């Protein structure tokens, strides 16, 4: 499994993938965080869903991670795309046969891949944390936000919790991408279905039939990053996500193990 991890890591660290991913998440981190701080004084909505957060609220210890949390869903979608493409491309490039000749125990390939992509996701989330917090500090003065509470014990604890939750959620979305990649064996199909489902179909479904909200996979995975919400509890989201992803992984692992590799 470790050999598969190192092999996958070599692919993930190629500049076109690693740098472009980090640059993209950096751009979104700066953009989302900047909007919050630069629009505080305008009196207009400055955060997600057309809501507004004030300088007083941001001056509390939650201000440290506010920008970080804003980017969490974007991180999840990015992970979904990377995990899906890294998995499905083995079929489209025909490279799976090379991998299986060098590592015939198929589950070890999957496990190594998953570990390597999870490490990649961890670096991406950590980098985002640094970028959003740095941007928050840089723009706090401009928005009239005081940062003294951001270095308190509560703030540091919240940062740790938020990092853990966002990481779990990001890897959860990544796992969803990997499942779709193994299922559809085409990066474009896997990513299209994953993104459409998570961004559009679930939103429509939840709006049309509100009772479904608690049971939709992407909504629950995203809710983990938030640390739970008023409508869906954290533990509930954790359990529902684990159930979906666990069953999904079990099914695709079995398929991957048994399926003939004929391309």
């Amino acid at each position, binding site marked *: 499994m470790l050999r598969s991890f*190192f092999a996958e890591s*070599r*692919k993930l660290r190629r500049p076109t993938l690693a740098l472009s991913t980090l640059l993209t998440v950096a751009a979104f981190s700066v953009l989302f965080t900047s909007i919050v701080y630069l629009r505080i004084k305008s009196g207009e909505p400055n955060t997600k869903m057309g809501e507004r957060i004030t300088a007083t609220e941001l001056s509390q210890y939650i201000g440290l991670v506010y920008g970080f949390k804003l980017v969490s869903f974007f991180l999840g979608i990015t992970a979904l795309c990377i995990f899906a493409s890294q998995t499905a491309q083995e079929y489209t490039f025909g490279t799976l046969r090379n991998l299986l000749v060098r590592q015939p125990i198929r589950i070890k390939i999957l496990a190594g891949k998953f570990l390597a992509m999870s490490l990649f996701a961890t670096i991406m989330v950590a980098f985002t944390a640094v970028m959003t917090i740095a941007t928050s500090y840089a723009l706090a003065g401009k928005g009239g936000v005081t940062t003294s509470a951001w270095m308190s014990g509560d703030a540091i604890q919240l940062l740790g919790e938020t990092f853990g939750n966002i990481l779990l959620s990001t890897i959860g979305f990544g796992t969803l991408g990997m499942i779709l990649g193994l299922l559809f064996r085409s990066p474009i199909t896997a990513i299209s279905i994953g993104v459409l489902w998570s961004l559009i179909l679930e939103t429509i479904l939840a709006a049309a039939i509100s009772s479904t909200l608690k049971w939709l996979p992407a909504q629950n995975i995203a809710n983990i990053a938030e640390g739970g919400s008023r409508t869906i509890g954290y533990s509930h989201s954790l359990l529902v996500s684990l159930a979906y992803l666990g069953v999904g992984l079990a099914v695709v692992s079995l398929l991957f193990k048994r399926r003939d590799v004929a391309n």
Partner: protein
Amino acid sequence: MSQSAITVTNLSKKYGDRAALANANFEVPLGTICGFVGPNGSGKTTTIRMLLGLISPTSGSATVLGESITHPDKYLPRVGAMIEGPAFYPALSGEENLRVLASLGGFPQDRVAPLIDRVGLTDRGGSKYKTYSLGMKQRLGIAAALLPNPDLLVLDEPTNGLDPSGIHEVRELMRDLANQGTTVFVSSHLLGELEMIAEYLVMLREGRVIYTGSTANLLSAQQPVLVATPEYGVDLARLIEIARSHGHEASVVDDQAHIISESDWGAELNRLAFEAGITLAALTAVRPSLEETFFTLTEKIGE
């Protein structure tokens, strides 16, 4: 230890009602170069994929390097393979692609650079795979197959896309490896190439093995042909008649008399033609090539 690198026993693979391979039986002796021959769709790649653990047989069994194909993890670390052409990550360099496979196989990374040199990619090893020509891709595929320092090398059409000097290099490479004790199992459409290097042959047609054995035995079992060209074309019919009257099958092909006979009857034919007033401009004894033998065999089976 088994004396065969590969032993296939009643191996079959069915896709629905269609049998891609039907009850195949053959052996590949250790340390030989074995040609794997058959038209497109005859089951060559299916067989190779089963031997490499990529697809499961419907029935039958096989061993590779003495281990059952149900446990490919036991023999694949000693097997190098290029199946159905090279396949690599386009955005990685040739060298980096090999490093990925070396990491996965647990092979030392310092094997990569010498292999890149060995297949003639020294100047382009650092270039992205997507910029490679077909011949360069093929060379990289061969380098990847050599990563494990294999006891068995399985190559599926290794000379596709190579220029004549590249084909020559691959032929020499296979000879070198066989001399060092590596068994080479190679499928190719270039039967002339295989005739030059393969000591052993497995022939397939429509999923069935139609010949397995030494190349020399196969070729020597084929009837030789005397090709006689009379000075004047009008004498062709009489020449054919002479051959037939002495119990030999004969026919006209491209203004030449093709007479099925051992080469030592050539002198007698020349004398008989001379006595009949026919001057022979050329008389040659020809043994059928592997390609001609292959077509003869596949046509016979198809009838």
